[in-house]
């Protein structure tokens, strides 16, 4: 019995080599061990504050905006331009002062860094995949995606300036 197996094994290896196939190391024996799954029972803490209310003034988000300093004074011309861009490209999902499809931008800079806001506008796909706050927001708002409306950096900056006027 054992010799038959050996002959077959030799034949098998020979065939593999002869047809130029990959040389594989023969496994000794067969194992049918049941895979043991080690389950950890962890109870997640229930997040009580929704992502939209959470305050994080350190996270800059992920995207092209690495650092941004705001002037104390609001640039009214820029804000007016931002209001126009917001009206054209954002109002399908956002109302300035109340929750609609997405969250309201009112007082956003008391909860988020300016960089985070601009990265969310400019790079929403990656943000909602990788940024913990953006991910949580996506879930809070029923999985409704933040659409990438392909704003220029300049337009996104103007929208941010407009957000500063929402109080």
């Amino acid at each position, binding site marked *: 019995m054992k010799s038959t197996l050996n002959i077959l094994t030799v034949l*098998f290896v020979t065939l593999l080599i002869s047809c130029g196939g990959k040389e594989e190391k023969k496994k000794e024996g067969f194992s049918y061990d049941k895979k043991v799954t080690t389950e950890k029972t962890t109870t997640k803490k229930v997040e009580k504050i929704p992502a939209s209310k959470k305050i994080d003034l350190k996270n800059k988000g992920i995207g092209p905006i690495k650092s941004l300093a705001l002037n104390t004074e609001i640039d009214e011309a820029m804000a007016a331009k931002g209001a126009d861009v917001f009206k054209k490209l954002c109002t399908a999902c956002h109302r300035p002062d109340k929750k609609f499809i997405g969250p309201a931008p009112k007082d956003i800079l008391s909860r988020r860094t300016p960089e985070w806001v601009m990265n969310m506008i400019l790079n929403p796909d990656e943000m909602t995949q990788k940024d913990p706050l953006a991910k949580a927001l996506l879930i809070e708002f029923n999985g409704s995606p933040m*659409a990438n409306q392909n704003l220029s950096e300049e337009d996104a900056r103007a929208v941010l300036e407009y957000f500063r006027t929402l109080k």
Partner: protein
Amino acid sequence: MKHLLKLTIAIVSVLVAFTSCNNTSKSNSGALSSSAAEKVYVAPGDHDEFYAFISGGFSGQLSVYGLPSGRLFKVIPVFSQDAEKAYGYNEETKPMLNTSHGFVPWDDAHHPDISQTNGVIDGRWVFINGNNTPRIAKIDLSTFETTEIIEIPNSAGNHSSSFVTENSEYVVAGTRFSIPIPQKDMPIKDYKGNFKGSLSFISIDPEHGHMDIKFQLIMPGFDYDLSHPGRGKSHGWFFFTTYNTEEASTLMEVNASQNDKDFIAAVNWKKIEEYVNNGGGTMMPAKYAHNVYDEATHSATSTMKKEVLTVNPLDVPGAVYFLPTPKSPHGCDVDPTGEYIVGNGKLSANLTVHSFTKMLKAIEDNKVAGEAYGIPILNFEDVLAGVVEQPGLGPLHTEFDGKGNAYTTFFISSEVVKWKIGTWEVVDRQPCYYSVGHLMIPGGNSQKPFGKYVVAMNKITKDRYLPTGPEVTQSAQLYDISGDKMELLLDFPTIGEPHYAAGCPADLIKPRSKKLFKLEDNKHPYAALSEADTKVVRDGKTVHIYMTTIRSHFAPDNIEGIKVGDKVYFHVTNLEQDYDVPHGVSMIGANTSELLIMPGQTETFLWEPKQVGVWPFYCTDFCSALHQEMQGYVRVSPANSNTPLKWSLGEDIE
């Protein structure tokens, strides 16, 4: 028991190894050559090297494939309605299918050709002919959409079309069937000498590609089968094969095959252009539609033209010559240098190749063998460059690899034959499965072919794929022609019955491919460019709904005050400004297709409600996790009701 198990596994392993070894050695032609599978394998996420635009034949459309993978990317609707894309169904594109015969929702698409600059493919537009109700279409390769269709008057069976000159000066459309010009009520038996064939030279605007019939050459009543432009040294000439020089009108398969030789018509279009520019030609009344799609308004308009400039070839001496060519030649192919004109005599044993230089010499020496309706016929021997002796049966078409070789399809003997230009010797042949018609080498109709692959388009499929009832898919085959011998790499299915294809390197088109339409450039008269612009407007029994879409809602999504008997136009603007986020919309009971609206685009469908009730509409293209929630309602009241017109989103209608 344990030993038995081991033994069984060992035997199975050996068998598997043996079988796989067999398969491997079968597809390997040598130790150094890689397998066919490797040559056509494009790894997931990688892109193909070439685009192939393969005519959709009797589907009326144009398909877009990748080479070498043979993967289908898109079917571009051209001459036929396409419910998937709402082409010919929505209000914006219905005018594209308008003709002098009214709305014609189908055609038989034949020969795609890509625009050229300086004799080289430039990847801007594809032109393709509708054979049945004669039309030429232009497809813009930045959007992969049909943006223009011009009808060809005085033509029937628009077959020797739609080939482009080497600077895209003209796209040419020749009639296959001769007819009375102008059309009139007359006995069919009086065909001979009374019917005429028209060859139309359609100018192409260099910037926008707009088409306009510059002139029609009114030729004797033969069948003008195929054509190709001169290039390089023969630029300024165009060559057309003819058959039925017998001018028969019945039992054509016998009566149109009597003559030993038919002709290739050589047309000096530069000469005729000059004649026309100097006021030559006769304007004649004609009725033909010119349909243009405007990317800014996302809408097409159809204009009915009233006259066409015709040219009698006898009025322009030296402009047209007949080159005798055996026997009912089909394909008319010009090599990359422009010197050789191949007449694929489909009933001839040999392949005839004419020389452009010899033709010019014969003309210069005024060596004329005779004339046909006043058009000079040159001597066969004076223009002949060479003959490929008995290369196969039933030659149809020839393409070139740019390395001195030609490849000809043989329908009856079902093969592609490779032969050498100049020595006329056959150097290789490969079988086709089955009955090959056209073939295509990317750039094959230009000065610069990319001689890496040839695609053979077969007329008969039979057993090549899993059977699908009596009707089976059409079939193409891909051959590697980079070596001395052709190698069959791949079968892949095609739509309709492909008549010719055009190909080019992907890099010519890929960088220019549009990703979306900018909302700020949208000039559609019924666009709503933000939700603030959405509204419902009644004008008598006509209602216009200015609607928007974004992931994942319509605005408005509740509408009341619509009445039975109204004509309700849904003008839907997709507010998305991101790549690959179209939205669809469809309304219960609408007698039309869905809309499929690209980002930034506006499209319109008509709904004529016939029943009282509350009727839903919804998004048809899965757009986000909340796609199933993208829906709305229209309340339809009786015709005599007083339900006020109201619309809303996110709140109850008051």
